[in-house]
């Protein structure tokens, strides 16, 4: 018997030893995981940090051979200078006009199309829908070449129209909203029909409110698209009166290498990025919901 007693205590000792060993390993792994994540987070955040502190430095401080990580004198005047140098006011207005109008029109078109695909029966519906989805595979550049000639023929060069109309229909948004509409039970629609509610009223009073999160996602992505668009505006509307924010930023600061006045340039970059950050802070969940299903920017 004493022998067995001894065995159990040995066994328990082993267990506690093993347990504490596992605890140490677990703690070590946890520390490593956090260290890795924090290091990556710092790398991810660093460009933003560098943008902001550089934008607040004096040119002399920026040009010091040993960098400072906090501005000695805070030069808010860089922002005023950036604002006037890049003519940011005009660019903001242009971009907002294009963004707001194209978002509103795009929402109307998307809602109507998604409703037709989700609720109405008509010949060739499935075929048409698959054809639309198939166009999503084609790279946009292929369309741009012809659209460039088309808008020239329409006489749309250097107008707001050329920045808005060609991109009003997004098959992806129609698809997204159709999926959402399909989840709304058909009984609601039939009940509304019995009550004599018109389609448009039903759409506006029932479907739109129920699909609001998707509509918000679409709005944000569309606005971000206008804010970040670069290639198409450069081709078709690069005049002073219609220039968009990204093109304006790039045009105002053509040099990125060599001897550059970075504080002012970084201030301009920060001003252009600020609205995006604000949208991000307040509407993050809608952006993330829309993005995870799309795989495309804007």
């Amino acid at each position: 018997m004493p022998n067995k007693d001894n065995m159990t205590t040995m066994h328990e000792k082993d267990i506690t030893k093993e347990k504490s060993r596992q605890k140490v390993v677990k703690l070590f792994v946890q520390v490593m995981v956090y260290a890795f994540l924090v290091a990556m987070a710092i790398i991810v955040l660093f460009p933003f940090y560098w943008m902001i502190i550089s934008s607040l430095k004096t040119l002399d401080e920026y040009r010091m051979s040993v960098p400072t990580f906090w501005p000695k004198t805070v030069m808010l005047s860089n922002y005023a200078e950036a604002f006037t140098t890049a003519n940011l006011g005009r660019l903001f207005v242009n971009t907002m006009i294009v963004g707001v109008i194209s978002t509103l029109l795009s929402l109307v078109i998307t809602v109507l199309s998604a409703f037709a695909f989700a609720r109405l029966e008509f010949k060739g519906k499935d075929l048409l829908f698959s054809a639309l989805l198939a166009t999503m595979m084609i790279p946009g550049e292929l369309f741009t070449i012809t659209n460039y000639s088309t808008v020239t023929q329409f006489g749309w060069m250097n107008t707001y129209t050329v920045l808005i109309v060609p991109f009003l229909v997004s098959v992806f948004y129609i698809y997204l909203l159709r999926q959402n509409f399909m989840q709304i039970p058909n009984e609601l629609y039939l009940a509304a029909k019995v009550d004599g509610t018109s389609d448009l009223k039903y759409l506006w009073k029932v479907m739109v409110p129920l699909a609001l999160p998707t509509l918000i996602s679409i709005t944000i992505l569309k606005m971000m698209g206008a804010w970040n668009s670069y290639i198409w505006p450069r081709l078709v509307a690069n005049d002073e009166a219609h220039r968009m924010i990204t093109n304006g930023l790039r045009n105002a600061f053509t040099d990125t290498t060599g001897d550059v006045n970075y504080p002012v340039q970084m201030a301009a970059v920060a001003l252009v990025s600020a609205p995006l950050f604000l949208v991000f802070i307040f509407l993050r969940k809608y952006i993330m919901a829309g993005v995870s299903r799309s795989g495309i920017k804007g």
Partner: protein
Amino acid sequence: MVDNKQQWKAWIYLSPAIVLLLIFTVWPIFNTVRMAFLENYSGLQAAGGKTFEFGIQNFVKVVKYRKFVSCLKNTVILCVTTVPISTLLALLIAVALNSIKPLQKILQTIFFLPYVTNSIAIGMVFAAMFNIVGSFYGTENEIVVTAGIVNNVIEFLGGKTINWINYGSTYTANMIVMIVYIVWNALPFKILVLLGGLQSINKQYYDAAKVDSTPRRRVFTHITVPLLSPMLAYVIITGFIGGFKEYTSIVGIFGENMGPADDAGRLNTMVGFIYDALETNSQGRASAAALILFGIILVVTMINTQVSKKRVHY
């Protein structure tokens, strides 16, 4: 009767979308193919009444064009480097994020931040970080005012200053900068998708592994990766598609020059080639290049889906 009413109603609702799609999506598909097969087609000359012969010369010329080959090379290099690097990093970060509780939300937000940025604007920030401020345009007495924060860090760690993007910089250095920037830019979307996938994996698998006291590495390779494989396939395919269309990130760092001051166009990509052709009114050449790009994307996507059919566990 109701059916008939629904028919025309549906078409009315669809009409704005259909009209716009016909003009800006369907017509371009046919027209771009048409222009690609008309020899040396130019929109400007066509407007002047010139006619063009049918042929495949546009494709032959594009493929033989030295600039095109270099654009293709740049695009492929950026694709095959950035997609694996960013996918692997995103996977590690997503798995790490999934395994922690405190700080998870904050870190998740931080990692998503680069997504909501303007790739031209932040490209300019990266240029600032890599740029050597000073004047050295091939002259002997080069003046370095400040070497840029990246070089400062390298010096601090005991390395030597590298000319990343300035006059006289090497192709390799340029490419490294581009890869760093593109990976930085590609991470948020991939982390978001992979983390979403991880969070939907049934906890029972891990509990079973715990009961069997499976080592961490085996849990990762035998449970996490297989169950995550649909998401992995998704981010890899979209990553390749995006990678072949790389353009604005290079404009962000190098400007319209698409290369360092002494070698403009060195870093140009397929998309850049198409737009250059378009701007010189060579629609035939642009169309041919766009179709080649489409073909490449199609083939790569097909290869990807074939591979994933064998490897992905749904």
